């Protein structure tokens, strides 16, 4: 074993591992360097440095009873556990813990799909279930519900939602934590708790009314460390009858402001799915003169950008819209979108895209029939899990920074300028420039992306990435933009930016942690929440 849990000697740790083996079986406890290799963060920018967080062992229980047994053993010896679901949180730490020496509690064997109801439209699953598994289960049974999945389908609905991950369909469903309904959790003392209607014995509505009665603590388990989630419910979208797409372009830079307002209206009225924004001017970034303009310190003027767009014969912005419903309702919503936008923004143009009944054919899923170049990920848009998007991964992976910014054109312009200037000292391609479009993954906010690659054999490069990440977290926070999710090595930095009233939120969470888990048995440091034992 390469490392030990905090404050534990080797002989005592050997006893802990023996007790783990007694609880789950000898085949499901690992502590050799070789076996722990896959528990490292393969996308880590601090690979092979002192900053890398390494596990001391991993243990894989098969059921809730075994999870409780492991937690109780860990509590007796004050060994921190780091729960993972399918362990695919790449870009945000993968399966690696916050505290070196933690034992990874690998929940992959809790892989039962307990229920999918396509009349009341929900699922109840365990953490080891992947999006691939859930999709396959639904398809094999011909159930009339659609899942909402993130880019890589190997992740876990539970793990992804607890990280507040996102998908690509209708607003309610693509906020994966928001679409959850009911949690079962093993608390740090080993006790089992259910939230919402799950707390009422005999209730048949656990996945239909998330609140139950009184405070709802379910949110404490998302990006938190107050227990080990062993079951979770999710609302599912009924399989729509029809899917329709369309493209709208607007000519001038400032037109983005009105375009966003119209799309916000459509989206918040549940008339469209994920709006996919883009700038056709990105095609010009290979031109050195245009690149210099788009990345100009302080940002270019509207007039400069409009002149460049006019000279190139390109619109400044576009949005691809997606509609789910019947053939008639999707057509009506698309017609309304065109009417609202084309009547308000001079020079705006609309282009009909593909539309077809659902479920889609394989050819339709391949997404090669649009009459225009599309940025929509068709499988994700239709709830079909895939790993096709792994094609964007460069070098040895990447880390991700996704600031939450207001859903307005003005905020986009400000973020382009501020974040672009903040990264100017670093030798990366331009992530933020005057053509950078917002992401509308989370339904009621915009995000942008900084995701530099990492290189295991290039520590100087990784150190640059690390410095850039820490700088951009700080600069964004100065402007009111916070990161939504972070790898363990950045969680303290990000949590520190949510500092209203002298860090009242963090102090409150620390009080809870001290009351529930003072020894830090469950993921100390996760979400920037440290129990008394580990606070410096």
């Amino acid at each position, binding site marked *: 074993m390469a490392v030990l849990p905090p404050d534990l000697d080797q002989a005592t740790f050997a006893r802990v591992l023996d007790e783990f083996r007694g609880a789950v079986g000898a085949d499901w406890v690992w502590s050799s360097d070789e076996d722990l290799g*896959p528990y490292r963060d393969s996308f880590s920018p601090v690979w092979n440095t002192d900053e890398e967080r390494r596990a001391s062992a991993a243990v894989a229980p098969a059921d809730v009873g075994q999870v409780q047994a492991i937690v109780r053993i860990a509590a007796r010896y004050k060994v921190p556990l780091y729960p993972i679901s399918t362990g695919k949180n790449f870009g945000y730490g993968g399966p690696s813990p916050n505290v070196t020496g933690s034992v990874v509690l*690998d929940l992959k064997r809790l892989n039962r799909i307990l229920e999918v109801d396509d009349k009341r439209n929900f699922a109840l699953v365990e953490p080891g279930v992947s999006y691939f598994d859930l999709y396959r289960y639904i398809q094999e049974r011909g159930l009339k519900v659609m899942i909402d999945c993130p880019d890589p389908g*190997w992740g876990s609905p539970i793990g992804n939602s607890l990280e507040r991950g996102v998908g690509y369909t209708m607003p309610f469903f693509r906020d994966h934590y928001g679409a959850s309904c009911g949690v079962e959790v093993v608390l740090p003392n080993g006790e089992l708790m259910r939230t919402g209607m799950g707390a009422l014995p005999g209730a048949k509505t656990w996945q239909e009314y998330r609140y139950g009665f009184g405070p709802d603590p379910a949110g404490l388990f998302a990006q938190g460390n107050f227990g080990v989630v062993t079951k979770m419910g999710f609302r599912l979208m009924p399989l729509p009858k029809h899917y329709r797409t369309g493209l709208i372009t607007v000519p001038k830079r400032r037109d983005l402001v009105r375009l966003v307002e119209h799309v916000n209206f459509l989206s918040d009225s549940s008339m469209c799915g994920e709006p996919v924004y883009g700038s056709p001017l990105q095609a010009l970034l290979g031109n050195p003169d245009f690149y210099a303009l788009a990345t100009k310190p302080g940002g270019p003027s509207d007039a400069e950008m409009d002149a460049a767009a006019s000279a190139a014969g390109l619109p400044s912005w576009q949005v691809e819209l997606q509609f789910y419903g019947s053939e008639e309702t999707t057509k009506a919503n698309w017609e309304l979108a065109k009417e609202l936008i084309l009547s308000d923004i001079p020079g705006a143009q609309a282009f009909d895209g593909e539309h077809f009944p659902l479920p889609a054919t394989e050819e339709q899923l*391949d997404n090669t029939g649009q009459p225009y170049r599309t940025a929509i990920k068709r499988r994700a848009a239709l709830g079909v899990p895939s*790993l096709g998007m*792994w094609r964007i*991964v460069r070098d040895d*992976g990447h880390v991700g920074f996704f600031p939450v910014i207001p859903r307005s054109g003005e905020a986009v312009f400000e973020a382009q300028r501020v974040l672009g200037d903040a990264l100017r000292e670093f030798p990366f391609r331009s992530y933020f420039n005057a053509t950078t479009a917002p992401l509308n993954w989370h339904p009621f906010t915009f995000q942008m992306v900084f995701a530099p690659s990492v290189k295991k054999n290039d520590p100087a490069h990784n150190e640059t990435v690390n410095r850039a990440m820490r700088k951009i977290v700080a600069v964004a926070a100065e402007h009111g933009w916070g990161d939504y999710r972070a790898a363990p090595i950045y969680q303290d930095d990000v949590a520190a930016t949510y500092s209203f009233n002298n860090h009242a939120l963090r102090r409150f969470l620390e009080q809870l942690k001290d009351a529930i888990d003072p020894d830090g048995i469950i993921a100390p440091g996760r979400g920037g929440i440290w129990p008394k034992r580990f606070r410096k």
Partner: protein
Amino acid sequence: MTRTGIAACIATLGAAAFGTSFAQDASTSSVPDVADTKPLPVEVDHPGRELFERNCAPCHAPGPGDDGAPMLPGTAALAAKYQGQRYGALELRGDLDANVLRYFVRNGIGAMPMFRKVELSDADIDLIAAYLEASAEANLSRR
């Protein structure tokens, strides 16, 4: 698990990590139609097939990638690495024994992360290797 990683790993680490076996690969993989990026679908009935399809195929299968991409990510990475000297799709490769697979599954490479024993046991990897051998043989015999 990503097919991309496996492909890239084999390309960059193979010579050092598996010198003998890769030297053999080079001499035995006189691949016909190496420019063919659309290999025949594999119909082999083998106990390793489901394991491959669930764990490897989403990146390493033949056939198109998403949204107009000509290949899936792992297949594309291997095809780019080998430049026609070996197939990109693992089901057409007859040169990946269980030890080679195990190395890349457990260590990852490039964009492909490592896979834990709780996801894929050593016995699972053995079955996948046997399936790949059978599928490659079946495909070549059909050409």
